[in-house]
Structures are given as C-alpha cells and as structure tokens.
C-alpha cells in the first residue's frame, strides 16, 4: 500500500485546512478513506458516538497537484484508516504560508500519515516541518461500514437559516436544557424548541425556502401532505451545537432533512466538498 500526495496552492491548502478543522470539531476520531479520485472522512453510526454519523467527500483533483495511490489490491484500489482528526488539524494549523505540503503513508514506529510542510525560511534552504500522525489501517473485511449513506426517506426538506444565527440561539438554549426539538414544514418555517419544568423557549424562523428534490420518490408523498404540518425530531442539543459551532467552511446553503421523530440529516454542499451529518432522535 502506498500513498503520496502533494499540494502546492495556498488557496487549496487553506480550504483543505478549513475542512479538516470542521471535521475535527465534529469528532475525535474518524476514518480517512482514499480512492483514486476522492478523499473521504467518515464517521459511522456507532453507539459510542451517540449514533451520529458523518460523511464528508472531497474531490482529490481540486486540492492536490500530485496524487498517487496504491490500495490494498488492484481491484480495490482504496485505503481506509482510523485517524485522529485533531492531529491532522494541528499539523495543518501552522502551514498557512507553506511553500508546499506533502502527505504520505509511511511506516515508522507504526503506520503513520506523514505530513511534511515546507516553509519559507531566511536561508536558501527551506525549513521542513514533519508531523507523523499514527493511524490504524482498516482491513478490507470491515469496509462494509464505509458506504455512502443514502438520503433518508425524509418528510420535510428545508434550508437552514444562517448558521451563525442558529448557533447563537442553540448556544443559549444549551444552558437551559439537554434536548432540543427541531421542527420544520414545507412552507419554509422552522422552530427550535426547548422545554423544561420551569421554562419553555421557542425560536421561530420563516421564509427559509425548501429545496426541490426533483424526481424523488419521497417527494410525491410529501406533496400530499399539508405544507403547514410541522415535522419534528428531538435531538441531543450538544450534538447539534457541535455541528453548528464547528463549521469553518461556509457554504451558501445548508439543507436539513427531517424524518419525523427519527432522524435529522444535514447536507452542506460546497464546490469541491460535500458534508453530510446525521443526528438520530433521542429515544
């Protein structure tokens, strides 16, 4: 198994850093998947995570100038490994003015992702900073977990309000309650509600807009429904806040799909990056 990649453009480097920072805010460890044309950051829905799962896809060509991969075998030219996203984020943090960045899979004291950053220096020879991030290579038999999640059969699909505003609201609510009810309808209205013994607080958003999903089977069933009906899901407020607060990539629109009382699904779409995040309802 071999992997080598090189990044030269500062803009790409900063963009990549932002994506990695977002991932590191969402989860401590995740799975890094490498294929010939894409990079994946995956978090599967295990009980340990509280059932949340994440799928982030980057198209390799827009970030890397050189990319060479030899996977586990020729027909499965892919590599999956466990990685602490925070380490990668730290390695990239000080690379904002780098001349070049090389990432490769190495085997030092254990399998590592080595990030070698070439920094400008006062002399003719550049400074080189090397970070060895230990990873755990995942054997092929466990690869079943790493399939792109299908869009759930949602009841309502709506665009979120500006993430910053939503984050401020949820942050204040976090002090009052552990669970938040997120509800929305097909009329572009969304409410965030918390309720405790002493107090209940609701924030209303309107004119948000609903994305149209085109020829989607689930669309038909929702059209029959009254657009005013609110579909809701009760989620752990900290998970929601983690998602909102960690965003560094600022996409223009974020889609929120709600399956009534089951799960909420967020999709962020950027030109080269797509991030999906699932929060299950609290039992």
């Amino acid at each position, binding site marked *: 198994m071999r992997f080598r990649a090189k990044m030269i453009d500062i803009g790409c480097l900063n963009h990549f850093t932002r994506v990695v920072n977002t991932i590191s805010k969402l989860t401590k460890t995740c799975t890094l998947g490498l294929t010939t044309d894409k990079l994946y950051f995956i978090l599967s829905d295990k009980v340990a995570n509280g059932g949340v799962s994440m799928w982030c896809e980057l198209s390799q060509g827009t970030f890397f100038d050189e990319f060479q991969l030899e996977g586990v075998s020729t027909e499965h030219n892919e590599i999956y490994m466990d990685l602490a996203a925070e380490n990668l984020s730290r390695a990239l943090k000080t690379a904002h003015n780098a001349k070049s960045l090389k990432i490769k899979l190495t085997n030092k004291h*254990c399998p590592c992702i080595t990030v070698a950053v070439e920094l400008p*220096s*006062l*002399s*003719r*020879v550049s400074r080189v900073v090397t970070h060895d*991030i230990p990873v755990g290579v995942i054997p092929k038999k466990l690869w079943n977990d790493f399939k792109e999640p299908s869009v759930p059969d949602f009841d309502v699909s709506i665009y979120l309000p500006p993430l910053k505003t939503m984050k401020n609201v949820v942050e204040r609510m976090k002090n009052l309650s552990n669970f938040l009810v997120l509800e929305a309808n097909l009329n572009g209205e969304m409410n965030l509600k918390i309720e405790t013994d002493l107090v209940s607080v609701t924030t209303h958003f309107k004119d948000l807009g609903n994305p149209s999903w085109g020829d989607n089977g689930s669309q038909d069933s929702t059209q029959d429904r009254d657009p005013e009906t609110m579909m809701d899901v009760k989620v752990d407020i900290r998970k929601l806040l983690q998602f909102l607060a960690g965003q560094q990539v600022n996409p223009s629109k974020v889609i929120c799909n709600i399956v009534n009382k089951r799960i909420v699904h967020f999709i962020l779409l950027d030109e080269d990056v797509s991030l999906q995040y699932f929060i299950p309802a609290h039992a």
Partner: protein
Amino acid sequence: MKCVLAGSNVKAFGKAIHALSRVGEDLWLDPLEKGLAVRSVNSSRSAYACFLFSPLFFQHYSKVTTQQPLDEGDVEPVLKCKLTMKSVLPIFRCLATIERNVERCKIFINFRDSHVVFQFSCRHGITKTHNLGFQECESLQAVFPRDMCPNVLKAQARLLGDVVMHFPVWQEEITLAVTPVKVSFRNYFEEETDLTKVMHTEISLNPDEFDYFQVGVDSEITFCLKELRGLLSFAESTGLAVSIHFGTSGKPVAFSIDDMVLEANFVLATLIDTESQAASPKRPHRGTLLQSLAVMTQPTVPLAGEMELAELARTGHEGSIAMETSIPELPQALDREAELVISSQGSAIFNGKAARESVIACHWSEYGVGVHMDQIQEEAVGVVPATIGHNKVRTGCFYNHGSSHGDTIKQQDHPYFVNQVQLLRRGWTKVLCWNGVRGIQVSRLCLKGFSGVPCSSTHCCWRSPPSSVERMPWCCPAWCVPVTTRRSWRKERRSPARTLSLS
C-alpha cells in the same frame, strides 16, 4: 535599594516578571552594583532564570540600602529579598493597561517594615502603591561555565518563536539535535507514553538561519519547553536575539539575551542520555542544576590570568599560561537552602578538566602536525581558555578551508576548537586546536582575534605565518574567536586593542 523606571521600561520589566513566573513560584530581588538582578528557580531546581537590569535601564538606580551613612567598620548589609510570585505577578498582570496608564514606577525596599514597595505614578495624577512583604534569604545564583560550552547558537527571537509554534501548548519537553550541517527540534515523550497514539513533530533548520552557529560536538539535548516559553515571548516582544549555549546531553543549556541595558539568562537542566552512560539507570532522568553545575560556597578566586601582560611576559616564554585552579569536590546532596554561587555572567571558575572531558566526545585518532596527541592532552588538561589581560578568549571554533601546507590537514570543513592558547616570545602565539579527530597548531594570530574586539569581517582573523616553520593557516570565514560578554570588555572595546607584543 531604590530605583525608578519610566515609560516603556515598566512594560519590559513587567514582561520579565511574566517570563520568570513561568519558571518558579518565588522571585528573588538582588540589587547589585551592576544593576538589579531578578531571579527565579523552579521547585525541582532544574530551571534557573535571571534578569539583570543595568543601571541604564532605570531613570534612577541606587543600590544603597540604608539612608544613614555607614559608621566606621560597619559592613553594608547585603540585602537579598525573596517575594512570592503570587504577590508580584498581579501587579504586572495587565501589561496593556500598564503601557497606557503608567508613567513611572518606583521600586524601593522598606527595611523597617520588611516591605518591597512598588509605586506606580499613573495618568491623571493617580498613584498606586503596592507593599509586598519579603523574606530575607540567601543569594541565589547558578554557576554555569557558559564559555566552556562547545555548542553555541544565536538566533533572532522570531526564528525560535516560529519553531516552537509548531509544538502544542501542552508539550512539556523538546529535543534539540545539532550537527554541523543541521539543527532540528522535535517533541519528546516519556518512555511510558504509547508511541502509537501520539503525533511526532520535527522541524529542521539550516545553520544559515542562525546569526551565529558553532557546533563543536554533535549533541541532542532534551529540555523543558514550558519554562522556556517565557523567555521566548520576552525576546520576541523586545526584538532581541537569543543565544543558546550547550554541550552534550545531561549538561545544562543556557538561553541568554544580551543587550545594552539588560541581560537575561535561563539555565535549564537537560535529560541525561542513558545510551551514552552504561552505568546509569534505565530511565532517562533529568540532571538537576545542582548536579550539573559547579556549586561552591567559597568566594571566587582571581585567576592567574588576570595578571598584567608584562608579568606574563616575564614568567613564561615558552611556557603555557596554564592556570590551575583547585576545584573543590562537588557535594553529592544539597539541601534547598544551600547557596548557589556566583555569576552566571561569564564566570571564571569552572572545572576545566571535567568540562573538557565532556566536550571531547570523540576518539582521538592519528594526527600529525607536529605536536603529539599525548602532549596536547597532557598540556590541555586543567587549562582554561587563556585570559589575556582583561580579555578572555572564549573557546572558539573555526573552520579549516584548506591547508596551504600539504596533506595532513585535509580540505574539509571541520570545525576546530581552540583548546589551549600559549603566549610565546616575540608576539607569537601558539594555539592548539582539535576537532575531535585531529589537532592542529596555529602559530600566529591576528591580533584582532585575541584583543577582544569582535571581528566583523567575513574573512580570516587567523593569518598564516610568514615562514613555513609551523603549519597553518586557514581562513575562518565569519567565525572569529568570539569574545566574552563581560561588561568590562565593553569598556575596553572603545580603547585600542591590546597587543600581544611582549618585547
């Protein structure tokens, strides 16, 4: 003691206090003739920090501790006081406010009440007075023979700041590894850490990036980064360069800042590398300052080298200026109250033999210039770098870029160490040097190199002798024999260089 600080110096003083607070829990104030020394040491005695503010730093500085004139026979009381960091730091905590509001700061010691008083004269006629109780204590100083360190690096604070920013804030210790062609810093983990879980970071630099680069012996030292960060942030804010003096692992490392008005020295113990010492226990342990530094309780004795040149000329022509100092035995265990003695500022006292033994890490091999290896070893043992008048020749290092006299010295860029200097008749000087592999001898030296004047030219300070009697020569580009940083030298800099003509 009474002193007055004005303007931006108050902020600089505050920054120094911040840097010291990262090291220890207590602050020692020591008013000296040459300025106010503010020191701290950590609880395990593995880090020592000292800021020396010269009288020029203050608007007014007076060391006198009592108001009344001393009676005949009275000894002026030697005052050293110790304050807790907890009481001093809050006074200087918010430097931005100090910069904005404080016009002057007066510091004086009130004996009667055992208080140190910090009085701030602020804007709008406001005066803030802080009375801090102090404890009288023994002096705290570390002996560290900086001049005997084989490795010296000097870099702008910015460079060092750029290096340490790659390490996380919680990183305790880092390892500095030097060879003549590379400098690298990497993070260090205790043996118990699970290496498969932690991220290793290493940054390599080219020697060109340093203002001064001298590596006499390849070494890797591991020291505490946390304690050092205080000094680095002080240096960055004042824009001064930082010098690093060190030797092999186990010996302390000194980080210093030298300026016209202040000097700072941070001496940190380094971990002892167990691989090189068969007898030591498995776990690497930190050599404490008490073990690594010479600790003495007697006052310093002047060296023979402080004699006038004329006297030297009389006493020794072919002979060496070997100065034998009697080195007291290092005590094995010291309790906390023990006095650490004098001067981290270019102390003249050190254990030459031990220092030299530790500096020569390599094996002597065949050598052949005209002086026998054994002879050199014999002569060199116990010899301190020669003191010529008031000027000291620090062990310098220079590169041989080729010999004009044939084959024994190859054309390689090996750094050579000044091992011994002998004043000979008629202005000749014999310098014995070694690079760990072979020794060579240079016969005549450019006066500049030894007069204490730093040579700023990029060409040699070492001239080849006119005759081919002795071998020689070579160019020492950019690395002249460095000079001592003692204050006395600074005065002499303005006077014409002392010559070595002894006739």
